[in-house]
């Protein structure tokens, strides 16, 4: 197969199923955006990459999945039942993830922060936390077994047909929920007192504490906010793909790529970056050599590496300290 042919067939496929790729891209992008915001918020406040954030996402996904499975049993939800289940799953996922995020902060970061330990120590203990959570989930819920949240929607439920493409209800729900959550997070950070505290701490923690901002509680709120978004994202992700113990690693790296792409520390940048990565991955599927889907991963990691090497401040510019 010649290289030219490879490109042409790729574009042919995109042409044939443009709206399908767009739908999948937006759906995944919404999830990535919600996780990326967590990375960016923590980076703004603590100045470190929360390596365990992917696992926070995974825990939320499991919580939501078990809740809906428990409620539904063998039944199939319809109408308002589906809506209620999605909201309940997102809430419980968000709560559990927020709790896990606080746990990670308390156990893996706080003791080190109090000793003013070097950055290397934070990275290592974060990797430890991520390993721990991932393996514990694997031990309890099985390794490599995707668990689905039961029939929250009727199987293959189509919301509407656009340009000859049937748009899944799940995709629409994911995008709407993500937009609502992201706008809420943006408002919280920009327009409330809590958000002002977060922005103040990311600008200059010491001065902020002199001005009466409680740094410890601000850090806690940041982890709660990021964790809640990631947990809700975990449930949304599991609607389509199910949740598995090592989902956090892969999705976590994609979301981190998104955060870096948008300029880490920049909330809106992270959201846009997430959307971009989702679309990019979806549209790169037809360009996989020999139809091997792993090429999508390679392309994404290439973006990560290239952005970090060429422009580590991201497309929109690193804003840690200015607008959080």
């Amino acid at each position, binding site marked *: 197969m010649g290289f030219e042919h490879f490109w042409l067939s790729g574009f042919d496929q995109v042409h044939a199923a443009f709206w399908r790729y767009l739908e999948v891209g937006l759906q995944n992008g919404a999830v990535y955006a919600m996780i990326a915001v967590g990375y960016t918020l923590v980076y703004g406040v603590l100045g470190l990459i929360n390596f365990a954030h992917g696992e926070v996402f995974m825990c939320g996904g499991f919580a939501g999945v078990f809740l809906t499975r*428990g409620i539904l*049993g*063998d039944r199939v939800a319809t109408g308002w039942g589906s809506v209620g289940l999605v909201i309940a799953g997102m809430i419980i996922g968000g709560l559990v993830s927020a709790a896990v995020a606080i746990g990670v902060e308390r156990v893996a970061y706080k003791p080190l922060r109090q000793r003013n330990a070097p950055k290397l120590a934070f990275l290592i*203990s974060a990797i430890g*936390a991520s*390993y721990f959570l991932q393996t*514990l989930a694997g031990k*309890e819920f099985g*390794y490599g077994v995707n668990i689905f949240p039961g029939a929250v929607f009727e199987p293959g439920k189509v919301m509407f047909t656009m340009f000859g493409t049937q748009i899944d209800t799940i995709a629409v729900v994911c995008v709407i929920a993500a937009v609502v959550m992201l706008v809420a997070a943006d408002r919280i950070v920009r327009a409330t007192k809590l958000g002002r505290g977060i922005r103040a701490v990311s600008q200059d923690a010491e001065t902020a504490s002199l001005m009466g901002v409680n740094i410890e509680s601000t850090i806690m709120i940041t982890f709660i906010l990021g964790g809640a978004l990631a947990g809700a994202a975990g449930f949304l992700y599991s609607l389509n793909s199910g949740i598995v113990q090592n989902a956090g690693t892969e999705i976590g790296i994609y979301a981190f790529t998104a955060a870096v792409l948008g300029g880490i520390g920049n909330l809106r940048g992270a959201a846009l970056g997430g959307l971009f990565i989702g679309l990019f991955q979806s549209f790169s599927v037809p360009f996989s050599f020999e139809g091997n889907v*792993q090429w999508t991963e390679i392309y994404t990691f290439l973006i990560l590496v290239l952005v970090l090497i060429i422009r580590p401040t991201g497309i929109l510019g690193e804003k840690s300290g200015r607008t959080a």
Partner: protein
Amino acid sequence: MSLISPANLRRLFWIWVILAIVAVMTGTSGNNSTPPTTGVHGSFMERVSFFGLFATWRWLLFVALGVIIWLISSAYRPRARQIHHGVDAFMALPRRLTAKRSTRLILMALALILALVVPKFIHESFWMYLIVEQIGVWVLLALGLNVVVGFAGLLDLGFAAFYAIGAYVTAWFTGALPMPALFHHPIPTLWVIPLGIVAAMIFGVVLGTPTLRLRGDYLAIVTLGFALIIDDFVETQSGVTGGGLGTSPVPHPVLNLGFFHFRWGLSPTPYYYLCLVFIIIFLAIFTSLEHSHVGRAWVAIREDEVAAESVGINPLKYKVMAFAVGAASGGFGGVLTGGLVGIINPGLFTYQVSVNVLVLVIFGGMGSIWGVALGTIVIQTVTSYLDNYQPWGYQINDLYMYIGALLIVMMIFRPAGLLPSRRRAREFAAAEGGEEIHTDEVLTGEQP
């Protein structure tokens, strides 16, 4: 009595929380073949799952254990400071005892003799094989990563990539890849050793030059990204690398000096000696590097990059050098694995391998060559034992849970490692507002 004071009761609560986590960690695994089924009773209350903590009477044991630990610790609380000092003094014992050069030489000689006679005591080929594959190769890897993380202070999460390069270069030159060997002429495995080392070093330079300008956490992510790319690439390119199934067998090395002919076969013992020779070589090289001007430059960069640059040290040059030097021993580890294992597949070089090597370095003590070597032997022995005997319901995958917990605990209580390098321990203390670092030691080098 202050036993039931609020502070003391809070301590009891936290002891219970920690023990609950331990109870879950050591408890029965969830049922992997059938994931938690539908319905409330299928998932939440499943006897074997996470939520089944209270399904057996085991929890009572842990509650009682918590009370016992609490009582003992309460009794010793007034003397906490003393105990703390005692523990510190005990942990510093190996450093103190080896303060004299003569003692160190004697210990080294003893260690060498012990290493030479180990095969005499181990008769089962299986265990000998494990010693080479699980300890020998990993000591090489850990020593290599120690140069990068310990000496130069760069967090590399993709160290397995160097290992992979060494192994795949071996497969390539010996003609074990689906792709024909270079110049269509396979060469003996033993001759690949220098080639594998050089290839890994070149790769270290190629990888390091663009990435090492980045800050610490970004560097970690970039190295991780590269490792994942290589991993995926190796798996997708089955026409070149054999893909997920692996290569065809790499031939066993043969030494032919005309008058002397030796063939490494299925028996692992000759590999053991080959590995030992190279471990000693790398130990010697790394120790002398540590005390050379290169080692001092690494210390300077690690402690304060801006200051190092202002006294004329080119940080990038020395960082790339650390990558290349570390890659050398990783690359050799790969060649050795190629000869020993034969069939090379991507499963040998995953992200988990990189993190495992990092754990060995941190456990032994970043920057402390002997600490890393000893720590590797300890951890790898324990994990090999656990994996092969699986005592107390232990399962192979559980290992990573304990590794994660170990990393956190080490970072909280003993960030400089089990057998810390003296300088590294002081850096950690200094960063935490303790002792000052004396700059003249940077210039004269660490002379323990």
